Protein backbone atom coordinates (compact mmCIF):
# COMPACT_ATOMS: atom_id res chain seq x y z
CA UNK A 1 0.00 0.00 0.00
CA UNK A 2 1.32 3.41 -0.89
CA UNK A 3 1.93 5.69 2.05
CA UNK A 4 -0.56 8.47 2.52
CA UNK A 5 0.53 11.76 1.02
CA UNK A 6 1.95 14.24 3.47
CA UNK A 7 -0.84 16.45 4.77
CA UNK A 8 -0.84 20.06 3.70
CA UNK A 9 -0.25 22.20 6.76
CA UNK A 10 -3.27 24.05 8.10
CA UNK A 11 -2.83 27.30 9.97
CA UNK A 12 -5.03 27.71 13.00
CA UNK A 13 -7.39 29.31 13.60
CA UNK A 14 -9.19 28.41 10.40
CA UNK A 15 -12.62 29.58 9.33
CA UNK A 16 -15.89 27.71 9.67
CA UNK A 17 -18.48 28.98 7.22
CA UNK A 18 -21.90 29.55 8.72
CA UNK A 19 -24.41 29.39 5.89
CA UNK A 20 -28.15 29.34 6.59
CA UNK A 21 -27.46 28.31 10.18
CA UNK A 22 -25.27 25.37 9.20
CA UNK A 23 -21.59 25.08 9.96
CA UNK A 24 -19.65 24.02 6.88
CA UNK A 25 -16.06 23.31 5.91
CA UNK A 26 -15.07 23.55 2.26
CA UNK A 27 -11.35 22.85 2.35
CA UNK A 28 -10.21 19.24 2.18
CA UNK A 29 -7.02 20.00 4.10
CA UNK A 30 -8.96 21.57 6.96
CA UNK A 31 -11.36 18.63 7.01
CA UNK A 32 -8.46 16.21 7.27
CA UNK A 33 -6.83 18.37 9.91
CA UNK A 34 -10.01 18.42 12.02
CA UNK A 35 -10.19 14.67 11.95
CA UNK A 36 -6.51 14.14 12.61
CA UNK A 37 -5.83 16.75 15.24
CA UNK A 38 -9.19 17.50 16.84
CA UNK A 39 -11.13 14.21 16.69
CA UNK A 40 -13.86 15.99 14.73
CA UNK A 41 -15.45 13.99 11.92
CA UNK A 42 -18.50 15.91 10.79
CA UNK A 43 -20.64 14.66 7.96
CA UNK A 44 -19.95 15.12 4.26
CA UNK A 45 -23.05 16.60 2.66
CA UNK A 46 -21.93 17.62 -0.83
CA UNK A 47 -23.84 16.05 -3.67
CA UNK A 48 -24.82 16.72 -7.26
CA UNK A 49 -27.83 19.02 -7.53
CA UNK A 50 -30.97 17.13 -8.58
CA UNK A 51 -29.09 13.85 -8.28
CA UNK A 52 -28.64 13.39 -4.58
CA UNK A 53 -26.55 10.44 -3.52
CA UNK A 54 -26.53 8.07 -0.60
CA UNK A 55 -24.28 9.10 2.22
CA UNK A 56 -21.26 6.99 1.21
CA UNK A 57 -20.82 8.90 -2.05
CA UNK A 58 -21.04 12.41 -0.69
CA UNK A 59 -18.23 14.94 -0.94
CA UNK A 60 -17.38 18.38 0.34
CA UNK A 61 -18.67 20.48 2.03
CA UNK A 62 -18.46 18.90 5.43
CA UNK A 63 -21.22 19.83 7.81
CA UNK A 64 -20.31 20.16 11.47
CA UNK A 65 -22.77 19.74 14.28
CA UNK A 66 -23.12 22.98 16.28
CA UNK A 67 -21.42 21.11 19.13
CA UNK A 68 -18.42 20.31 16.95
CA UNK A 69 -18.15 23.89 15.76
CA UNK A 70 -18.42 25.09 19.35
CA UNK A 71 -15.69 22.77 20.57
CA UNK A 72 -13.36 23.94 17.79
CA UNK A 73 -14.06 27.59 18.59
CA UNK A 74 -13.65 27.08 22.34
CA UNK A 75 -10.31 25.41 21.72
CA UNK A 76 -9.21 28.43 19.72
CA UNK A 77 -8.71 26.28 16.64
CA UNK A 78 -11.34 27.98 14.52
CA UNK A 79 -13.73 30.88 14.25
CA UNK A 80 -17.13 31.08 12.65
CA UNK A 81 -17.82 33.47 9.80
CA UNK A 82 -21.14 34.42 8.24
CA UNK A 83 -20.14 33.45 4.72
CA UNK A 84 -23.04 35.05 2.86
CA UNK A 85 -22.36 38.47 4.33
CA UNK A 86 -18.61 38.16 3.81
CA UNK A 87 -19.11 37.22 0.18
CA UNK A 88 -21.39 40.13 -0.51
CA UNK A 89 -19.11 42.64 1.13
CA UNK A 90 -15.88 41.38 -0.37
CA UNK A 91 -17.10 40.89 -3.91
CA UNK A 92 -18.54 44.40 -3.90
CA UNK A 93 -15.19 45.74 -2.74
CA UNK A 94 -13.25 43.78 -5.36
CA UNK A 95 -11.53 46.03 -7.90
CA UNK A 96 -11.75 45.62 -11.65
CA UNK A 97 -8.10 44.65 -11.94
CA UNK A 98 -8.47 41.87 -9.39
CA UNK A 99 -11.55 40.66 -11.17
CA UNK A 100 -9.87 40.51 -14.56
CA UNK A 101 -6.82 38.87 -13.12
CA UNK A 102 -8.96 36.18 -11.61
CA UNK A 103 -10.88 35.64 -14.82
CA UNK A 104 -7.62 35.27 -16.72
CA UNK A 105 -6.44 32.79 -14.17
CA UNK A 106 -9.59 30.75 -14.55
CA UNK A 107 -9.21 30.84 -18.35
CA UNK A 108 -5.65 29.65 -18.10
CA UNK A 109 -6.71 26.74 -15.95
CA UNK A 110 -9.48 25.94 -18.41
CA UNK A 111 -6.99 25.82 -21.26
CA UNK A 112 -4.75 23.53 -19.26
CA UNK A 113 -7.61 21.15 -18.67
CA UNK A 114 -8.48 21.21 -22.37
CA UNK A 115 -4.92 20.49 -23.40
CA UNK A 116 -4.68 17.63 -20.96
CA UNK A 117 -7.95 16.11 -22.13
CA UNK A 118 -6.98 16.50 -25.75
CA UNK A 119 -3.68 14.71 -25.31
CA UNK A 120 -5.46 11.96 -23.40
CA UNK A 121 -7.93 11.52 -26.22
CA UNK A 122 -5.09 11.33 -28.71
CA UNK A 123 -3.38 8.66 -26.69
CA UNK A 124 -6.59 6.69 -26.43
CA UNK A 125 -7.13 6.93 -30.13
CA UNK A 126 -3.62 5.76 -30.91
CA UNK A 127 -3.97 2.83 -28.61
CA UNK A 128 -7.31 1.81 -30.07
CA UNK A 129 -6.03 1.99 -33.59
CA UNK A 130 -2.96 0.01 -32.66
CA UNK A 131 -5.12 -2.71 -31.19
CA UNK A 132 -7.04 -2.96 -34.45
CA UNK A 133 -3.80 -3.20 -36.35
CA UNK A 134 -4.45 0.10 -38.09
CA UNK A 135 -1.55 2.37 -37.40
CA UNK A 136 -2.47 5.99 -37.39
CA UNK A 137 0.54 6.89 -39.50
CA UNK A 138 -0.33 4.36 -42.17
CA UNK A 139 -3.87 5.69 -42.44
CA UNK A 140 -2.65 9.21 -42.83
CA UNK A 141 -0.22 8.15 -45.53
CA UNK A 142 -3.01 6.34 -47.33
CA UNK A 143 -5.18 9.41 -47.33
CA UNK A 144 -2.39 11.48 -48.75
CA UNK A 145 -1.65 8.91 -51.44
CA UNK A 146 -5.11 8.32 -52.78
CA UNK A 147 -6.62 11.49 -54.04
CA UNK A 148 -9.78 9.85 -55.23
CA UNK A 149 -10.65 8.34 -51.84
CA UNK A 150 -9.66 11.52 -50.01
CA UNK A 151 -13.13 12.61 -49.04
CA UNK A 152 -14.12 9.27 -47.66
CA UNK A 153 -11.02 8.98 -45.49
CA UNK A 154 -11.47 12.49 -44.25
CA UNK A 155 -14.96 11.63 -43.19
CA UNK A 156 -13.88 8.60 -41.21
CA UNK A 157 -11.24 10.61 -39.44
CA UNK A 158 -13.74 13.31 -38.68
CA UNK A 159 -16.16 10.79 -37.27
CA UNK A 160 -13.41 9.34 -35.15
CA UNK A 161 -12.55 12.76 -33.80
CA UNK A 162 -16.08 13.67 -32.89
CA UNK A 163 -16.74 10.37 -31.19
CA UNK A 164 -13.71 10.83 -28.99
CA UNK A 165 -14.61 14.41 -28.24
CA UNK A 166 -18.16 13.64 -27.29
CA UNK A 167 -17.25 10.60 -25.23
CA UNK A 168 -16.76 12.86 -22.25
CA UNK A 169 -20.26 14.20 -22.59
CA UNK A 170 -21.75 10.75 -22.48
CA UNK A 171 -23.69 8.89 -25.13
CA UNK A 172 -26.78 11.03 -24.69
CA UNK A 173 -25.01 14.03 -26.17
CA UNK A 174 -23.50 12.08 -29.06
CA UNK A 175 -24.67 13.33 -32.40
CA UNK A 176 -26.67 16.15 -30.94
CA UNK A 177 -26.14 19.57 -32.37
CA UNK A 178 -25.74 21.02 -28.92
CA UNK A 179 -22.00 20.59 -28.59
CA UNK A 180 -20.88 22.33 -31.75
CA UNK A 181 -22.18 25.88 -31.24
CA UNK A 182 -21.22 25.60 -27.58
CA UNK A 183 -17.64 25.09 -28.64
CA UNK A 184 -17.63 28.24 -30.67
CA UNK A 185 -19.21 30.62 -28.19
CA UNK A 186 -16.20 31.13 -26.03
CA UNK A 187 -13.63 33.53 -27.39
CA UNK A 188 -10.09 32.21 -27.11
CA UNK A 189 -8.71 35.63 -26.20
CA UNK A 190 -10.07 37.60 -23.30
CA UNK A 191 -11.98 40.61 -24.40
CA UNK A 192 -12.00 42.69 -21.26
CA UNK A 193 -14.97 44.83 -22.19
CA UNK A 194 -17.03 41.75 -22.93
CA UNK A 195 -16.14 40.26 -19.57
CA UNK A 196 -17.02 43.48 -17.84
CA UNK A 197 -20.40 43.42 -19.41
CA UNK A 198 -20.90 39.79 -18.43
CA UNK A 199 -19.95 40.50 -14.85
CA UNK A 200 -21.90 43.67 -14.43
CA UNK A 201 -25.02 42.94 -16.44
CA UNK A 202 -27.09 39.83 -16.02
CA UNK A 203 -28.07 39.88 -19.70
CA UNK A 204 -25.99 37.62 -21.92
CA UNK A 205 -23.32 39.34 -23.92
CA UNK A 206 -24.74 40.07 -27.31
CA UNK A 207 -22.98 43.20 -28.50
CA UNK A 208 -19.37 42.02 -28.97
CA UNK A 209 -19.56 39.05 -31.27
CA UNK A 210 -16.95 36.57 -30.06
CA UNK A 211 -14.19 36.09 -32.55
CA UNK A 212 -14.46 32.65 -34.02
CA UNK A 213 -11.30 30.83 -34.82
CA UNK A 214 -10.52 29.37 -38.17
CA UNK A 215 -12.27 26.22 -39.22
CA UNK A 216 -9.60 24.06 -37.61
CA UNK A 217 -10.79 25.14 -34.17
CA UNK A 218 -13.98 23.20 -34.69
CA UNK A 219 -12.23 20.02 -33.56
CA UNK A 220 -11.19 19.04 -30.07
CA UNK A 221 -8.49 21.66 -29.86
CA UNK A 222 -10.96 24.51 -30.05
CA UNK A 223 -13.12 23.29 -27.18
CA UNK A 224 -12.40 25.05 -23.93
CA UNK A 225 -13.45 24.07 -20.44
CA UNK A 226 -15.04 26.53 -18.11
CA UNK A 227 -13.57 26.10 -14.66
CA UNK A 228 -15.94 26.68 -11.79
CA UNK A 229 -13.86 27.54 -8.73
CA UNK A 230 -14.75 25.40 -5.71
CA UNK A 231 -13.28 27.75 -3.15
CA UNK A 232 -13.93 31.43 -2.75
CA UNK A 233 -10.89 32.20 -0.63
CA UNK A 234 -8.29 32.17 -3.35
CA UNK A 235 -10.14 35.01 -5.10
CA UNK A 236 -11.03 36.62 -1.81
CA UNK A 237 -8.64 37.08 1.07
CA UNK A 238 -9.41 34.86 4.07
CA UNK A 239 -11.85 36.75 6.30
CA UNK A 240 -10.24 38.16 9.37
CA UNK A 241 -11.13 37.16 12.90
CA UNK A 242 -12.82 40.43 13.74
CA UNK A 243 -15.84 39.47 11.62
CA UNK A 244 -16.16 36.23 13.57
CA UNK A 245 -19.61 35.32 14.85
CA UNK A 246 -20.23 34.59 18.53
CA UNK A 247 -20.06 31.03 19.85
CA UNK A 248 -22.45 28.66 18.09
CA UNK A 249 -25.70 28.01 19.89
CA UNK A 250 -25.78 24.43 21.14
CA UNK A 251 -28.45 22.11 22.53
CA UNK A 252 -28.41 21.15 26.19
CA UNK A 253 -26.66 17.89 25.32
CA UNK A 254 -23.49 19.90 24.71
CA UNK A 255 -21.82 19.39 28.14
CA UNK A 256 -21.79 15.63 27.60
CA UNK A 257 -20.35 16.12 24.11
CA UNK A 258 -17.63 18.42 25.42
CA UNK A 259 -16.82 16.03 28.26
CA UNK A 260 -16.50 12.97 26.03
CA UNK A 261 -14.57 14.96 23.41
CA UNK A 262 -12.12 16.11 26.07
CA UNK A 263 -11.54 12.45 26.89
CA UNK A 264 -10.49 11.82 23.28
CA UNK A 265 -13.65 10.22 21.99
CA UNK A 266 -14.92 10.74 18.42
CA UNK A 267 -18.56 11.53 17.76
CA UNK A 268 -20.97 10.84 14.95
CA UNK A 269 -24.61 11.89 14.78
CA UNK A 270 -26.74 9.55 16.85
CA UNK A 271 -29.91 9.44 14.79
CA UNK A 272 -29.35 5.87 13.68
CA UNK A 273 -29.36 4.67 17.27
CA UNK A 274 -31.96 7.02 18.65
CA UNK A 275 -29.53 9.07 20.70
CA UNK A 276 -27.64 12.32 20.39
CA UNK A 277 -24.17 11.00 19.63
CA UNK A 278 -22.51 7.77 18.65
CA UNK A 279 -19.30 7.79 20.62
CA UNK A 280 -16.22 6.07 19.20
CA UNK A 281 -12.99 5.36 21.10
CA UNK A 282 -10.97 6.22 17.97
CA UNK A 283 -11.53 7.08 14.37
CA UNK A 284 -14.96 5.73 13.32
CA UNK A 285 -13.41 4.18 10.22
CA UNK A 286 -11.36 1.97 12.46
CA UNK A 287 -13.30 1.33 15.66
CA UNK A 288 -16.71 0.14 16.65
CA UNK A 289 -18.59 2.68 18.68
CA UNK A 290 -18.66 2.28 22.44
CA UNK A 291 -21.63 4.37 23.44
CA UNK A 292 -24.94 5.66 22.25
CA UNK A 293 -25.00 8.84 24.29
CA UNK A 294 -27.88 11.11 25.19
CA UNK A 295 -27.14 14.42 26.87
CA UNK A 296 -29.69 15.75 29.33
CA UNK A 297 -30.15 18.74 31.54
CA UNK A 298 -29.39 18.10 35.19
CA UNK A 299 -33.04 18.39 36.19
CA UNK A 300 -34.49 17.21 32.91
CA UNK A 301 -36.98 14.42 33.60
CA UNK A 302 -36.64 11.25 31.57
CA UNK A 303 -38.73 8.11 31.37
CA UNK A 304 -37.27 4.86 32.62
CA UNK A 305 -38.69 3.32 29.47
CA UNK A 306 -36.15 5.38 27.50
CA UNK A 307 -33.35 3.99 29.65
CA UNK A 308 -34.63 0.45 29.16
CA UNK A 309 -35.03 0.95 25.41
CA UNK A 310 -31.66 2.62 25.00
CA UNK A 311 -29.93 0.06 27.17
CA UNK A 312 -31.43 -2.80 25.28
CA UNK A 313 -30.64 -1.36 21.84
CA UNK A 314 -27.12 -0.47 22.93
CA UNK A 315 -26.42 -3.95 24.22
CA UNK A 316 -27.86 -5.44 21.06
CA UNK A 317 -25.44 -3.41 18.96
CA UNK A 318 -22.39 -4.05 21.18
CA UNK A 319 -22.53 -0.64 22.81
CA UNK A 320 -23.52 0.83 26.11
CA UNK A 321 -26.25 3.40 26.39
CA UNK A 322 -25.11 6.55 28.10
CA UNK A 323 -26.92 9.42 29.71
CA UNK A 324 -25.09 12.39 31.12
CA UNK A 325 -25.19 16.06 31.84
CA UNK A 326 -23.65 18.92 33.71
CA UNK A 327 -24.25 19.53 37.39
CA UNK A 328 -24.71 23.30 37.60
CA UNK A 329 -23.81 23.30 41.31
CA UNK A 330 -20.31 21.92 40.79
CA UNK A 331 -17.51 24.13 39.52
CA UNK A 332 -19.63 26.23 37.21
CA UNK A 333 -18.75 27.19 33.70
CA UNK A 334 -15.02 27.75 33.54
CA UNK A 335 -13.00 28.43 30.44
CA UNK A 336 -10.69 25.49 30.93
CA UNK A 337 -11.91 21.97 30.45
CA UNK A 338 -10.70 20.82 33.86
CA UNK A 339 -14.09 21.72 35.31
CA UNK A 340 -15.67 19.04 33.17
CA UNK A 341 -14.03 16.33 35.21
CA UNK A 342 -16.15 17.21 38.21
CA UNK A 343 -19.18 18.98 36.80
CA UNK A 344 -20.23 16.57 34.05
CA UNK A 345 -21.44 13.15 35.08
CA UNK A 346 -22.15 10.29 32.74
CA UNK A 347 -23.86 6.99 33.44
CA UNK A 348 -23.22 3.94 31.25
CA UNK A 349 -26.10 1.52 30.99
CA UNK A 350 -25.95 -2.11 29.90
CA UNK A 351 -28.46 -4.90 29.93
CA UNK A 352 -27.85 -7.12 32.94
CA UNK A 353 -28.82 -10.33 31.11
CA UNK A 354 -31.05 -11.58 33.92
Amino acid at each position, binding site marked *: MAPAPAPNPVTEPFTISCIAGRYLLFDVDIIAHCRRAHNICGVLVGTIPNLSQQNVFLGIPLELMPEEARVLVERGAAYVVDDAAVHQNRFMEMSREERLKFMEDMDRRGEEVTREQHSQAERRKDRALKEKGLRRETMERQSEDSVADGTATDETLQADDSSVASSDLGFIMKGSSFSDPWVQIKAPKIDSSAIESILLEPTPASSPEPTVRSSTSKGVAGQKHFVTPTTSYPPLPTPSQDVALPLPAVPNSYPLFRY*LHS*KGYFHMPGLRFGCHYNVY*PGDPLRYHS*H*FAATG*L*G*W*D*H*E*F*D*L*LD*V*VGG*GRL*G*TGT*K*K*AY*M*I*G*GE*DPDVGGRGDDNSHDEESV*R*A*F*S*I*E*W*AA*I
Partner: protein
Amino acid sequence: MTSILSQADMKQPIARAPLQTFVAVPTAPSPSGGTHLPHEQSLARQILHNLQHQHYWTGLQVHTHSPLTDEPLPRPLVSGLPPQRLYVHPDEQVELLKKADRERKARAAGEAGGLDVRTEPEREWILPTRLNEKWTLRRLAGVFDALTMVPPATETPAAAAEEGLASPWRTTKRVLLATADTDSTVVYYIVHDGVVKPRQN
Protein backbone atom coordinates in the same frame (compact mmCIF):
# COMPACT_ATOMS: atom_id res chain seq x y z
CA MET B 1 -76.64 1.19 38.99
CA THR B 2 -77.89 0.60 42.49
CA SER B 3 -77.87 -3.15 41.99
CA ILE B 4 -74.18 -3.08 41.01
CA LEU B 5 -73.38 -1.05 44.08
CA SER B 6 -75.24 -3.41 46.34
CA GLN B 7 -73.41 -6.35 44.78
CA ALA B 8 -70.11 -4.68 45.49
CA ASP B 9 -71.17 -4.14 49.06
CA MET B 10 -72.05 -7.77 49.43
CA LYS B 11 -68.70 -8.99 48.13
CA GLN B 12 -66.79 -10.95 50.73
CA PRO B 13 -63.33 -9.70 51.65
CA ILE B 14 -60.70 -11.73 49.79
CA ALA B 15 -57.77 -13.11 51.70
CA ARG B 16 -54.48 -11.44 50.77
CA ALA B 17 -52.01 -13.43 48.74
CA PRO B 18 -48.83 -14.47 50.55
CA LEU B 19 -46.75 -12.21 48.27
CA GLN B 20 -49.03 -9.32 49.02
CA THR B 21 -48.55 -9.87 52.72
CA PHE B 22 -44.81 -10.19 52.28
CA VAL B 23 -44.55 -6.98 50.32
CA ALA B 24 -46.84 -4.96 52.50
CA VAL B 25 -45.64 -5.81 56.02
CA PRO B 26 -42.00 -5.35 57.00
CA THR B 27 -40.85 -8.47 58.82
CA ALA B 28 -38.97 -6.47 61.40
CA PRO B 29 -39.84 -2.91 62.43
CA SER B 30 -37.15 -0.84 60.80
CA PRO B 31 -35.26 1.51 63.06
CA SER B 32 -35.70 4.35 60.62
CA GLY B 33 -39.45 4.29 61.12
CA GLY B 34 -41.00 6.83 58.83
CA THR B 35 -38.07 7.89 56.64
CA HIS B 36 -39.46 6.22 53.54
CA LEU B 37 -42.95 6.09 52.19
CA PRO B 38 -44.77 2.76 52.38
CA HIS B 39 -44.91 2.36 48.61
CA GLU B 40 -41.12 2.76 48.43
CA GLN B 41 -40.64 0.12 51.09
CA SER B 42 -43.03 -2.30 49.42
CA LEU B 43 -41.29 -1.76 46.07
CA ALA B 44 -37.94 -2.67 47.58
CA ARG B 45 -39.45 -5.80 49.09
CA GLN B 46 -41.07 -6.70 45.78
CA ILE B 47 -37.71 -6.50 44.00
CA LEU B 48 -36.06 -8.47 46.79
CA HIS B 49 -38.70 -11.15 46.44
CA ASN B 50 -38.23 -11.29 42.68
CA LEU B 51 -34.45 -11.64 42.96
CA GLN B 52 -34.71 -14.26 45.67
CA HIS B 53 -37.25 -16.54 44.03
CA GLN B 54 -36.84 -15.94 40.29
CA HIS B 55 -33.10 -15.38 40.06
CA TYR B 56 -31.87 -17.32 43.13
CA TRP B 57 -29.98 -14.46 44.72
CA THR B 58 -28.83 -14.86 48.30
CA GLY B 59 -27.86 -12.61 51.17
CA LEU B 60 -30.51 -10.09 50.18
CA GLN B 61 -31.25 -7.19 52.47
CA VAL B 62 -32.96 -3.82 52.31
CA HIS B 63 -30.89 -0.74 53.12
CA THR B 64 -32.56 2.40 54.34
CA HIS B 65 -29.49 4.40 55.33
CA SER B 66 -26.35 5.23 53.42
CA PRO B 67 -23.35 3.19 54.55
CA LEU B 68 -21.17 6.22 53.80
CA THR B 69 -22.92 9.04 55.60
CA ASP B 70 -25.56 7.19 57.61
CA GLU B 71 -28.09 9.62 56.19
CA PRO B 72 -31.36 8.17 54.92
CA LEU B 73 -31.06 6.95 51.33
CA PRO B 74 -33.22 8.66 48.66
CA ARG B 75 -35.24 5.46 48.71
CA PRO B 76 -34.71 1.99 50.18
CA LEU B 77 -32.13 0.02 48.22
CA VAL B 78 -31.52 -3.71 48.11
CA SER B 79 -28.20 -5.51 48.15
CA GLY B 80 -27.50 -9.14 47.51
CA LEU B 81 -25.27 -11.85 46.10
CA PRO B 82 -26.10 -13.23 42.64
CA PRO B 83 -25.66 -16.96 41.91
CA GLN B 84 -23.05 -16.14 39.23
CA ARG B 85 -20.96 -13.08 38.66
CA LEU B 86 -23.28 -10.40 37.33
CA TYR B 87 -20.74 -8.17 35.61
CA VAL B 88 -17.26 -8.80 34.26
CA HIS B 89 -15.37 -5.76 33.02
CA PRO B 90 -13.98 -6.34 29.50
CA ASP B 91 -10.40 -5.80 30.69
CA GLU B 92 -10.91 -8.29 33.50
CA GLN B 93 -12.39 -10.72 31.00
CA VAL B 94 -9.24 -10.52 28.90
CA GLU B 95 -7.13 -11.24 31.97
CA LEU B 96 -9.34 -14.15 32.99
CA LEU B 97 -9.17 -15.66 29.52
CA LYS B 98 -5.38 -15.39 29.47
CA LYS B 99 -5.20 -17.01 32.87
CA ALA B 100 -7.53 -19.81 31.84
CA ASP B 101 -5.48 -20.35 28.68
CA ARG B 102 -2.27 -20.65 30.71
CA GLU B 103 -3.93 -23.17 33.01
CA ARG B 104 -5.12 -25.23 30.09
CA LYS B 105 -1.63 -25.37 28.65
CA ALA B 106 -0.21 -26.26 32.06
CA ARG B 107 -2.54 -29.22 32.28
CA ALA B 108 -1.49 -32.54 30.77
CA ALA B 109 -2.12 -32.81 27.06
CA GLY B 110 -4.19 -35.96 27.47
CA GLU B 111 -6.71 -34.26 29.71
CA ALA B 112 -9.86 -33.09 28.06
CA GLY B 113 -11.45 -29.76 28.69
CA GLY B 114 -11.42 -26.35 27.14
CA LEU B 115 -11.05 -22.98 28.72
CA ASP B 116 -12.25 -22.93 32.28
CA VAL B 117 -13.04 -19.34 33.19
CA ARG B 118 -14.08 -18.96 36.78
CA THR B 119 -15.43 -15.84 38.36
CA GLU B 120 -16.63 -15.50 41.88
CA PRO B 121 -19.94 -13.68 42.36
CA GLU B 122 -19.81 -10.22 43.89
CA ARG B 123 -22.34 -8.43 46.00
CA GLU B 124 -24.36 -5.85 44.06
CA TRP B 125 -26.48 -2.83 44.83
CA ILE B 126 -30.00 -2.90 43.45
CA LEU B 127 -32.01 0.27 42.85
CA PRO B 128 -35.75 -0.53 42.80
CA THR B 129 -37.82 1.64 40.47
CA ARG B 130 -41.24 1.62 38.87
CA LEU B 131 -41.64 2.01 35.13
CA ASN B 132 -44.02 4.97 35.38
CA GLU B 133 -41.56 7.01 37.44
CA LYS B 134 -39.72 9.99 36.04
CA TRP B 135 -36.06 10.30 36.91
CA THR B 136 -33.50 13.06 36.59
CA LEU B 137 -29.73 13.00 36.48
CA ARG B 138 -29.68 14.83 39.78
CA ARG B 139 -31.57 12.06 41.56
CA LEU B 140 -29.51 9.34 39.90
CA ALA B 141 -26.31 11.09 40.93
CA GLY B 142 -27.73 11.45 44.44
CA VAL B 143 -28.24 7.69 44.67
CA PHE B 144 -24.66 6.99 43.54
CA ASP B 145 -23.22 9.57 45.94
CA ALA B 146 -24.83 7.76 48.88
CA LEU B 147 -23.43 4.34 47.95
CA THR B 148 -20.18 2.56 48.63
CA MET B 149 -18.30 0.74 45.89
CA VAL B 150 -19.40 -2.65 47.24
CA PRO B 151 -22.42 -3.15 49.49
CA PRO B 152 -21.50 -3.67 53.14
CA ALA B 153 -20.88 -7.31 53.92
CA THR B 154 -23.50 -9.42 55.51
CA GLU B 155 -22.80 -11.18 58.74
CA THR B 156 -21.15 -14.12 56.95
CA PRO B 157 -17.37 -13.85 56.96
CA ALA B 158 -17.12 -15.63 53.59
CA ALA B 159 -18.83 -12.74 51.88
CA ALA B 160 -16.41 -10.30 53.46
CA ALA B 161 -13.47 -12.30 52.14
CA GLU B 162 -14.92 -12.27 48.62
CA GLU B 163 -15.37 -8.58 48.83
CA GLY B 164 -11.69 -8.10 49.45
CA LEU B 165 -10.78 -10.33 46.52
CA ALA B 166 -13.14 -8.71 44.05
CA SER B 167 -12.07 -5.15 44.56
CA PRO B 168 -9.15 -4.54 42.12
CA TRP B 169 -11.34 -4.52 39.00
CA ARG B 170 -14.14 -2.66 40.66
CA THR B 171 -13.06 0.93 40.08
CA THR B 172 -16.40 2.61 39.42
CA LYS B 173 -19.62 2.34 41.34
CA ARG B 174 -22.36 0.35 39.76
CA VAL B 175 -25.98 -0.28 40.53
CA LEU B 176 -28.42 -2.81 39.19
CA LEU B 177 -31.41 -0.79 38.06
CA ALA B 178 -34.49 -2.92 38.68
CA THR B 179 -37.57 -1.56 36.93
CA ALA B 180 -40.94 -3.09 37.80
CA ASP B 181 -43.98 -2.72 35.60
CA THR B 182 -47.55 -2.83 36.91
CA ASP B 183 -47.85 -6.48 35.82
CA SER B 184 -44.92 -7.23 38.17
CA THR B 185 -42.47 -7.85 35.31
CA VAL B 186 -39.03 -6.74 36.45
CA VAL B 187 -36.20 -5.84 34.08
CA TYR B 188 -32.61 -5.36 35.20
CA TYR B 189 -30.03 -2.99 33.76
CA ILE B 190 -26.52 -2.28 35.01
CA VAL B 191 -25.82 1.41 35.49
CA HIS B 192 -22.19 2.50 35.92
CA ASP B 193 -21.19 5.79 37.47
CA GLY B 194 -18.94 7.17 34.75
CA VAL B 195 -17.66 6.28 31.31
CA VAL B 196 -17.27 2.50 31.30
CA LYS B 197 -16.67 0.76 28.02
CA PRO B 198 -19.19 -1.90 27.04
CA ARG B 199 -18.72 -5.62 27.43
CA GLN B 200 -17.79 -7.63 24.35
CA ASN B 201 -20.82 -9.85 24.19
